[in-house]
Each structure stands twice: as structure tokens, then as C-alpha cells.
């Protein structure tokens, strides 16, 4: 350990920002992760098994309503993942905490997979209803655009060599992308309003989902949220370690 690591830190009240310190962050996530993984697995298992085996069919949609336990949570996480990336990008821009930038980088692949699950389950759900494997339903289309935004964000991280430059550029992209994602949502709704009026998949939380579907859905959502948190914490830890390894190698090369 270098001298810098051993210098005593001045005592200061522990705040949320203390986790911006990579060492503290790693310690925190090591403590939390086992519980998180277990809780996530339990909630997912309970929610999905409950929903799949122990709920009735829907009057209109038959057994396809069971897809709701995958489609709704993944769609929610797809959006929340991007939102989290937006917040951590802002924190990077304003306070330049590396942990924050790495957290955004870590969240993106999770968001991509969530978006993909939302798209696939949405398309499969729609097939019996609409008769086609893909319909340009406004919601599905918006998720397709979100998918493209995720791909661009990840591609930019991969394309830039210097990690700080990559963090800066991707956070600007995330900001701009967020504005255009919202804009696109409105544009797409406008673009398709004439075609699928009233036939779009009912998956809003605002719609009155009956209690018998609602509770397993809540558990499934909890499972997805916990899984997201666990994955992002774990992946951020990986990024921190990779960064530290690079720094150590660079120091070696110089000395």
C-alpha cells in the first residue's frame, strides 16, 4: 500500500457522498451484495411463479396476460436505468466523482438487456392480438428508440480510449439523448395515433389492474429492481477494479 492509502482521513460525518470514495464504495457494495442477490432471486422467483402458476387468465387476453410479469418490470427498469444513468452523468459533470461515471457505464448494459426483454415480450404479447410479429405501436416504438440510444451510449464508451474523456463525452451524450428520448416519445405518439387507437397494450400502472394480478406484479417488479441494483453495484465494482488495475500498471510503467 502506498503512503497515500495509509494517511488518516479526517473525521467527518458519513454522508451519501462518502461513497464517492472508491474504497468505501467497494466496501459498501461487498457488504450489501450477498443480501441483494438473495433478495432479488427470491422476489423474482416468488413473483414469477405466483404469476405464472397461480393467477387466472384475463377475459380479453387469455393466458397472454401472464407476460405482464416480465414485460412491465423490464419496461420500468429500462426507463429507470436510463434515468439513473442521467443522474449519475450529472453528478460526474458537476462533482467529478469517478464512481458516479463508472456507475453510469455499469448500468448501461443492464438497461439494454431490460429494454430488449421489454421489446421481445412486448412483441410476443402483441402477436396474438395484432396478428403480426411486430407492430409500430407507440410504446414499443419508443422502446426501440431507447434501445438505439443505449447502443450508441455503450458504443461511445467503447470507442474512446481515455477513460476521463469517455466519461465526459458519454455524460453529455446521456444528457442530450435524454432530451431527445422525451421528444421522440411525443413524436412517436403523434406519428402513430391514427393507427392503433385503443388497441395498444394496456400496461400502464395507471390502468386498473385487478388485485389478483397486481400483487404478484408488485413482487416481480421488486425482484427486477433488486436485480438491477445488485447488477449495477457489482458492475460498478468491476469498473472500479479495472480502473485501479490500469492506474497501477501505468504507475509501474512510469517508475
Amino acid at each position, binding site marked *: 500500500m502506498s503512503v497515500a492509502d495509509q494517511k488518516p482521513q479526517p473525521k467527518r460525518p458519513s454522508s451519501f457522498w462518502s461513497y464517492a470514495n472508491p474504497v468505501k464504495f467497494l466496501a459498501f457494495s461487498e457488504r450489501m451484495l450477498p443480501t441483494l442477490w438473495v433478495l432479488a432471486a427470491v422476489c423474482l422467483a416468488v413473483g414469477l411463479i405466483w404469476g405464472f402458476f397461480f393467477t387466472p387468465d384475463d377475459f380479453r387476453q387469455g*393466458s397472454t396476460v401472464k407476460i405482464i410479469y416480465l414485460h412491465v418490470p423490464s419496461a420500468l427498469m429500462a426507463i429507470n436505468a436510463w434515468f439513473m444513468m442521467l443522474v449519475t452523468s450529472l453528478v460526474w459533470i458537476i462533482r467529478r466523482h469517478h464512481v458516479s461515471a463508472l456507475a453510469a457505464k455499469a448500468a448501461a448494459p443492464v438497461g439494454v438487456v431490460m429494454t430488449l426483454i421489454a421489446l421481445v*415480450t412486448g412483441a410476443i404479447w402483441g402477436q396474438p392480438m395484432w396478428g403480426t410479429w411486430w407492430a409500430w405501436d407507440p410504446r414499443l416504438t419508443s422502446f426501440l428508440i431507447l434501445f438505439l440510444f443505449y447502443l450508441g451510449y455503450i458504443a461511445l464508451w467503447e470507442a474512446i480510449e481515455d477513460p476521463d474523456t469517455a466519461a465526459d463525452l458519454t455524460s453529455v451524450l446521456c444528457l442530450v439523448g435524454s432530451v431527445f428520448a422525451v421528444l421522440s416519445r411525443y413524436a412517436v405518439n403523434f406519428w402513430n395515433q391514427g393507427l392503433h387507437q385503443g388497441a395498444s397494450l394496456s400496461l400502464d400502472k395507471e390502468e386498473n389492474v385487478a388485485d389478483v394480478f397486481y400483487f404478484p406484479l408488485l413482487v416481480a417488479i421488486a425482484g427486477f429492481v433488486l436485480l438491477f441494483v445488485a447488477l449495477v453495484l457489482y458492475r460498478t465494482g468491476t469498473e472500479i477494479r*479495472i480502473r485501479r*488495475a490500469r492506474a497501477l500498471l501505468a504507475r509501474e510503467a512510469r517508475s
Partner: protein
Amino acid sequence: MIPDLGKYADAVLSSYAASLVLLAILVLMTLRRGRKARRELAAIEKKGKQDG
């Protein structure tokens, strides 16, 4: 055991299969990359201690 899914059996089962496969791939790749990073960092830090 599997409830009567009626004519939508294909749709429901393939959604579950696809989603679980995607999640499994994500988790496995995450864990693999994480373990690799830990190993490499440990190796570099160990080497550093030995040299320094």
C-alpha cells in the same frame, strides 16, 4: 403442473424462456467479467507488494 395456457401457450412460454435466458446471460457475463477483474487486480497488487 403447467396451467392450461390454451392457444397462447407458445406466446407465454417463449416470452418466459426468452426473458430468463437474457437475464441469465447478463448475470453470467457480469459475474465472469467481475471475477476476471478481481483476479487481475489482485495479481497486480501482489506484484506491487513484492516489488515495492
